[in-house]
Structures are given as structure tokens and as C-alpha cells.
């Protein structure tokens, strides 16, 4: 006798919880061949608003945590992701070997960024020589709440944009890849079980064109990463909206992007503010 199939319900990830979309909508996700895979929640602007509130709420705690602690948690995410290797490989819509290689690359990417947590300040900060009796120190601080539009690569692309943003102490709202959001929600389950405080990463699935402008215009979002936006008009509109409160903007990366390449530091440093302190020398 065959078992009844237990299908997974893909929901959103907001504030550490997995709610359905406030709008009650969903959309069908298909494989590259057009086969039905699952229904994913189709987030509305109100879900985006709730996600920003959750991210803002999580910001003081996460940015106030020690860099060492953030690194440990990111490493823990990598550990938990490793444990879900087989499941995630099945959700990527790739051949088995290729999918496993992609998950491995995502795990490695997390480990790589985890290592940067307590080093970025040393590399990106400086002790400035000044003409006066002062210590003059510049140190990087997180920008705040970052809205991200994840690229098409369902897992490696997502990890490659989320990890650099949160490792430095930002919190984020990420719009998952529109055609292949399933891995993003499974990744959210990994995050939820990795000691990452609720609200540090919030994952929305749905229409990029519907969600991105609201996040770009939101006055409580401090930076915008348009990496995954493929429509030039939408990107332009988002950049214009983002000017409303002078958000830092990372512009779209043209597809196909090679996410396996060495990421460099840009994705971390773009979402940092430099704080410079003048401290009188003791006599």
C-alpha cells in the first residue's frame, strides 16, 4: 500500500515565523521543463511592510552582537545547510551532480563570509594619521535594513547576496527568485534553526515587479540591492524611488552571472557606513 503524499507548503519567512501571504495569494512554481513543482506564497506589499518592520526590530540586537558571535551563527547556518544538502539539491531544478555542486558552493560561500565577520573591520577600518594630538580611527558600521532582490540562481545566488549583508550586522528583506523560490524557503528553514535571531533575514516570494518598488520607496529601508532585477525599466524605477531617502543602491548584475567566482569584498563594503572617531591622546 502506497503512502499518502505529504506535500510541503511553501510560505513566507517574516520575523522568524512562516506566515502565509496576508493577501492569501499563491502562484504555481514549475520546473524549467514546465512541470508543476509546488505552489509558493505570492507576497503583497503589506507582507513587505511587515518584513521591514521585523527587520528593523531585529537590527539593534543583530548589529549589537559581537562580530565573533555573528560569524559563529553564519557558520552554524552553513552546518545546517550541509545537513539539508539532498533536499535542497532536489529543489534547484538542475541535474543531480550539478545541483549538489551548487549546494556545496553555497555552503562554502557561507563559511567564507562567516570568516570575514571579525576581519572586515580590520581590513576596511583604518587608524588615520592626523596632524594633531588625537587617535583618529575609522571603523565600519552596518547600514541598517537592506532590501535585496535575489538573482535567478535559486540557492547560491541567494546565499551570495544575503550572507555579505548580514555578516556585517545589517538585517535584510530578500525577494527570492521569482521563477524558482522553493530553495529560498527551504533556506529560510535552515536559517530558522540556526540560532539566527528572528527578523535578521526575511524572505518574500512573489512578483519582483510588485514587491521591489515598495521596498525601494520604503522610508525605513536604508539600502537596496537590485542584483536580481532583470527588467531595466524596473531597475530604473527602483533606483529613482530609492533616492527618496538616499538609500545606498547596488545596481543589477547582468545575467548570466557567474556566482561561483570569487565574490570579493564589494558586497560587504557596499552596505557599511564609516564611523570616524577623534580621541584625544592622553598626556
Amino acid at each position: 500500500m502506497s503512502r499518502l503524499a505529504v506535500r510541503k507548503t511553501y510560505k513566507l519567512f517574516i520575523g522568524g515565523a512562516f506566515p502565509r501571504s496576508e493577501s492569501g495569494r499563491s502562484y504555481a512554481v514549475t520546473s524549467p521543463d514546465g512541470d508543476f513543482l509546488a505552489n509558493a506564497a505570492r507576497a503583497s506589499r503589506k507582507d513587505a511592510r511587515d518584513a521591514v518592520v521585523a527587520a528593523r526590530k531585529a537590527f539593534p540586537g543583530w548589529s549589537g552582537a559581537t562580530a565573533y558571535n555573528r560569524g559563529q551563527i553564519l557558520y552554524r547556518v552553513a552546518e545546517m545547510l550541509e545537513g539539508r544538502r539532498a533536499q535542497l539539491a532536489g529543489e534547484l531544478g538542475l541535474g543531480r551532480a550539478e545541483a549538489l555542486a551548487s549546494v556545496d558552493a553555497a555552503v562554502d560561500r557561507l563559511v567564507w563570509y562567516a570568516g570575514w565577520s571579525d576581519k572586515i573591520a580590520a581590513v576596511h577600518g583604518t587608524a588615520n594619521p592626523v596632524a594633531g594630538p588625537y587617535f583618529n580611527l575609522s571603523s565600519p558600521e552596518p547600514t541598517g535594513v537592506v532590501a535585496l532582490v535575489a538573482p535567478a540562481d535559486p540557492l547560491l545566488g541567494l546565499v551570495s547576496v544575503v550572507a555579505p549583508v548580514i555578516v556585517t550586522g545589517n538585517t535584510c528583506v530578500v525577494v527570492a527568485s521569482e521563477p524558482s523560490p522553493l530553495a529560498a524557503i527551504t533556506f529560510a528553514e535552515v536559517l530558522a534553526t540556526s540560532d539566527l535571531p528572528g527578523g535578521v533575514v526575511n524572505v518574500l516570494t512573489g512578483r519582483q515587479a510588485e514587491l521591489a518598488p515598495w521596498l525601494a520607496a520604503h522610508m525605513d529601508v536604508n539600502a537596496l540591492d537590485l542584483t536580481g532585477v532583470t527588467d531595466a525599466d524596473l531597475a530604473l524605477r527602483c533606483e529613482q524611488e530609492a533616492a527618496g531617502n538616499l538609500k545606498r543602491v547596488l545596481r543589477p548584475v547582468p545575467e548570466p552571472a557567474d556566482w561561483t567566482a570569487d565574490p570579493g569584498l564589494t558586497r560587504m563594503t557596499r552596505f557599511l557606513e564609516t564611523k570616524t572617531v577623534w580621541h584625544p591622546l592622553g598626556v
Partner: protein
Amino acid sequence: MTTSLADVAASGATLRAFLHGLPGVDRVGADQRAAMLGTRSIKTTAKARAIDLAISMVDLTTLEGADTRGKVRAMCVKAVRPGGGAPRVAAVCVYPDLVPVAVEAVAGSGVKVASVATAFPSGRSSLDVKVADTAFAVAAGADEIDMVIDRGAFLSGDYLKVYEEIVAVKAACGEAHLKVILETGELVTYDNVRRASWLAMLAGADFIKTSTGKVSPAATLPVTLIMLEAVRDFRDRTGRQVGVKPAGGIRTTKDAIKNLVLVQETAGADWLTPDWFRLGASSLLNDLLMQREKLATGRYAGPDYFTLD
């Protein structure tokens, strides 16, 4: 049916008989009705009007031990001009010693100055001290006095003591309006909320107010519903209209609009003005202003662009 309530407070026994003769509150029914009214959807232009009405009903409050003259002055500036073309709020609410600062800061604007008195928030002092506290605030220029009832006496059934205290404080108020705080979070049952509402109204309250804001739960929707029913029934019975002020725990625009729906559906449109309904709050105003900004600009507002309270 305007029957005389003149003799109700003739003695402790008659007062007790009257209050215990009030119909009991159906707890489940009250909770469900409040929850049902809370699901009303108020959108677009109606929402814009509701937000402006709610702003005009706010009693902008700061009741902290750490209050300074500067903080009160800053709050008063915001009360008079909340920003973005929003209407002024109804009143500011401060401790008695800060009343002169508030009076000076809101002078000529139409914003009222309310002061808590009578050993706020616990009310644990002698009647003389409570009356003196009230007289001090009134002499300093307060337009409205927010007094607390003696919950200990109320819960032990000494209704006459509570009644006489309210009467004495009312006398000390002179021209000032008297709001009586029932502190419903300490009254335990909805029946007690109804009794305390009637008791306060019989004793001459101009307003009945849910809470001090120092006890949780504060202004829940069912409690406000019961108090609105009480003022409605009291007016039917005596012809005198009494206002209602939920205070404490109302932080979002959604909460405020739910309260407005409750007023409309329970007491009626007569109460939908700042003269008869107030919202005691501090952080609520910023949320109302942010929602107002969202409706005006079409983009979600952020707290960075509004003053801290």
C-alpha cells in the same frame, strides 16, 4: 425612561444595591462583539478621515518619573503642530508639577492641558492629599483632571468611599473637567468595569477613562465597549452625556481606528468628537502621522522622519 438617580448614593447600601442591580456583562459576547467590530475594513478616503479624527482625539501623554520641562515643552510643540498639515491633538497630559510648563507651551492653540492627580497612579493616599493634589493642578492652570479611583476600596465593596472621593475631587476641580480613571486592568471582571463606570458617572465624572497606562492589560477593546455602553445607557437614563477615554496600549493606527468603529457602533456618532472621546497615548501619534504620510505620498514612512516622544 428618565428615572431619578438622586437617592442612589444616599447610603452605602442603596449604592451597592443599585450597582449590583445593573445587568451582568456577557463576557464571551462582549469579547466577540469587540473582536467582530475590530475586523471592519476602513480604507482610502475614509481611512484618511479616520486618521485625522483620531489625531484630533489624542491626549498626548508623558507620565514618567524622568519627565523634564524640556521634554514637556517639546511634546507640547508637537501637540500643537503634529506636522504635515495634521490637525492639532485634543490635549496634553502631564504630572501636576509640569502643568505650568505645558500651559505656557500650548497657550492660545486650543490644545487643552490635562493633569493626573490624586496620588496617581496607585491612588494610595488620604483624601486630603488627593484633594490638595487636584487643587494644586487646577491652580497651575490645568483644564482637565485625570483622577484615579481607590481600587482597593472598590474591590472590597466600599463603593460609598469611592463615590465620596470622586465627589470631593470633582468639587476641587471647579471649572476643570474631571476624568475618572477606573484602572480596568485591576478590576478583574467586566461586571466590575460596568459598576465602576456607573459609579463614576453618578458621582459626577465628565469622562470615564480606562487605565493609568501603568498596569497591563490597559485599554482592551471589550473594556472600552462596556464603558461606551455605560455612557450610552447613562445618557438615556439621565440625559447627561459623559465622555470615554481609553488609554494605554493603543499604539497603532489600526488600534485607533478599531476604537473609532467601536464608538460609532456602540455609543453613536454623538461621541465621535474630541469633546466626548479621547485616546490617551504617547507612541500612537507617530504611527498615525506615519500612516497619514503613507496615504499622502504613496510610500511607506519610516520612524527616522518623525520626532521621538
